[in-house]
């Protein structure tokens, strides 16, 4: 009964208002390109100093959930992910929106965001301490192997041309190498420019690739009449879904949520990777992988289930061990400590009501998120009726502001511009964006962990294979690459036999 009092604490007016306000503000931050959940939590953290701990943590939880989920709106409607956690949402959400199914795409994304959050909450509540201890056993070897495995999945993002996909990944890896090298802090590719010492930030790179290139793509069209169709709401049934459709998405939902949970549990990987990995897994498991990227709702299900399932999972190492897994949970750790709550193994034993309060706040925030976004769909969809010359101009300014505000320096704005030009060039030369982003995110992780691992083994590679988890993921990586290559060879032979050459678009 003592622990249950934590549930009742959240049901008071103050915490409820804090959750509502947090979710609403989080959605606003998530949906504006350039603003992220991290920024929302960072800006609102000082507001929590003078309030009760339950109210403070309720606000932070609401901001986190709203901020991660809000990115889906602009990803679907404008092809510009509001946050890095919604990159893969744009792949299929935007094509659906373009063919007049924006309402349905938003409905599916919102529903599976909600369900994904519930999975993350369940993981947090049921198995937090043992899972957190298990995740802590992962060392440099395991992280290296997981990152390599994730990078091999890039083959699935390559579209029709695997060589171009790999080249795009390599460009991402090279971009991530700018600045101080991991382990020995050697300055690489900085050309004696101090602003390059810290490397390139993900946010300007992402916004440049997606937002600036989208503006330039729009600019190149002399006659947009046929492209700018009148927006249609087109959402019937339960969140735009029929019963059989919903059931058909369940295997994908379960798999993607599991990916989101695993990625969330492991400190340092983050929702920016989980949505891409879940998308790739869904594409690989699909009987019709070619339909991905052209408006297949399964892509939305994968991305949104994974990124939101990661929220509860990311709270597991924070609450059970006191270790933040990403920037948002690092700020939340600050929030805990400010209010005299020490996260760690003893939290569950000594501060049970607080654990129940946080769990209840997560659930309520998920419910408020789904309600706000569901009722907001008709409002969001109106974005499409605003002429694009207004919309894209203002979005571009938002991106500039977001890039500047991230580190308060103009260099990030120039990064945004440079990657916008690169993104547009890649678009014109038919190179996919997504592998570059994945390479940029995973590159430092691969290098840092391999170098740390090799230092501990005095330069020997073989001990990596003696670690079961590392060996498993490296084996999976090889297996995936071999099976993918064989499948492509078989397909090419079939096409040659039939005498038809399909040129990639």
């Amino acid at each position: 009964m003592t622990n249950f009092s934590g549930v009742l604490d959240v049901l008071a007016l103050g915490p409820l208002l804090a959750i509502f306000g947090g979710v609403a503000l989080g959605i606003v931050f998530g949906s504006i390109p350039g603003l992220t959940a991290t920024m929302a939590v960072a800006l609102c953290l000082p507001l929590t100093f003078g309030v009760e701990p339950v109210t403070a943590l309720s606000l932070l939880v609401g901001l986190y959930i709203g901020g991660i989920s809000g990115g889906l709106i602009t990803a679907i409607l404008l092809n510009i992910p509001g946050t890095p956690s919604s990159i893969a949402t744009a792949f299929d959400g935007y094509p659906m929106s373009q063919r007049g199914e924006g309402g349905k795409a938003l409905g599916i994304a919102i529903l599976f965001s909600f369900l994904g959050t519930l999975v993350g909450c369940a993981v947090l509540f049921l198995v937090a301490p043992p899972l957190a201890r298990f995740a802590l056993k992962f060392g440099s070897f395991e992280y290296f192997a997981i990152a390599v495995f994730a990078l091999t999945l890039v083959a699935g993002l390559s579209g029709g041309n695997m060589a171009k996909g790999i080249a795009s990944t390599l460009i991402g890896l090279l971009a991530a190498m700018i600045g101080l090298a991991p382990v020995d802090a050697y300055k690489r590719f900085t050309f004696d420019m101090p602003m390059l010492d810290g490397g390139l930030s993900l946010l300007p790179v992402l916004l440049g690739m997606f937002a600036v290139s989208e503006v330039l793509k729009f600019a190149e069209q002399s006659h947009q009449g046929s492209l700018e169709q009148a927006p249609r709401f087109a959402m019937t049934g339960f969140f735009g879904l029929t019963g059989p459709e919903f059931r058909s998405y369940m295997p994908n939902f379960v798999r993607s949520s599991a990916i989101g949970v695993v990625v969330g549990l492991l400190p340092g990987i983050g929702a920016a990777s989980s949505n891409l990995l879940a998308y790739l897994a869904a594409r690989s498991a699909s009987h019709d992988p070619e339909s991905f990227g052209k408006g297949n709702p399964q892509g939305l299900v994968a991305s949104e289930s994974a990124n939101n399932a990661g929220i509860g999972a990311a709270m597991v190492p924070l609450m059970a061990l006191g270790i933040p897994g990403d920037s948002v949970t690092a700020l939340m750790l600050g929030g805990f400590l400010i209010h005299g709550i020490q996260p760690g193994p003893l939290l569950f034993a000594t501060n049970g009501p607080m654990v129940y309060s946080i769990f209840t706040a997560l659930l309520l925030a998920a419910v408020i998120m789904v309600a706000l976004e569901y009722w907001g769909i008709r409002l969001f969809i109106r974005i499409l009726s605003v002429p694009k010359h207004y919309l894209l101009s203002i979005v571009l300014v938002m991106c500039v502001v977001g890039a500047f505000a991230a580190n308060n320096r103009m260099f990030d704005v120039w990064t945004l511009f440079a990657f916008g030009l690169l993104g547009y060039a890649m678009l014109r030369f038919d190179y996919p964006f997504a592998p570059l982003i994945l390479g940029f995110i995973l590159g430092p992780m691969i290098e840092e962990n391999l170098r740390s691992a090799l230092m501990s083994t005095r330069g020997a590679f073989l001990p990596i294979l003696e670690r079961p988890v590392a060996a498993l993921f490296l084996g999976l990586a090889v297996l995936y690459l071999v099976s993918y290559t064989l499948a492509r060879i078989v397909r090419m032979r079939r096409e040659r036999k039939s005498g038809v050459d399909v040129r990639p678009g």
Partner: protein
Amino acid sequence: MPSSAKDLLSSILLFVLGVVVHLNARTIVPRFKTGVDSGFFPEIVSAALVGMAAIIAVSALSKMRCKPSIVVVPDEQADELPINRFRVWGAVTVTAFYIVVLPMTGFLAATMAFLFALMCLLAQRGERRPLVFAPIAVAAAIAIHLIFVRGFGLPLPRGFF
């Protein structure tokens, strides 16, 4: 430009990038006796990039040489619209100019001018209404400034004046 020519051009650019990065990476001095040094990854990645550039180039050249018996062109490619290079380069120039003047003039003045110019540039001829764009640009710049600076407390460039 045909897709094979585009591939060939892009492969040359990638090749040059790979070679430049590789040569630069080889100048990195090792600091530790065990493990790998900071030049190891750039060398591997740049070498792989050169390899990929070669594959793309070979594939493009073979496409140029042999004509397929039947060519199936996806619909999107068939419907591809002509590119308005003036607007693309205009948008690039206006954005670059905006980023240059932003720290000098401050957010408000630069953004008002940028929004107005970009709206004029992106709008179709029939939709180009400078008298409507001007107040929208002013109002949007002020609104964004108020939201970010007053609302969220985020600093924006103030300018020299």
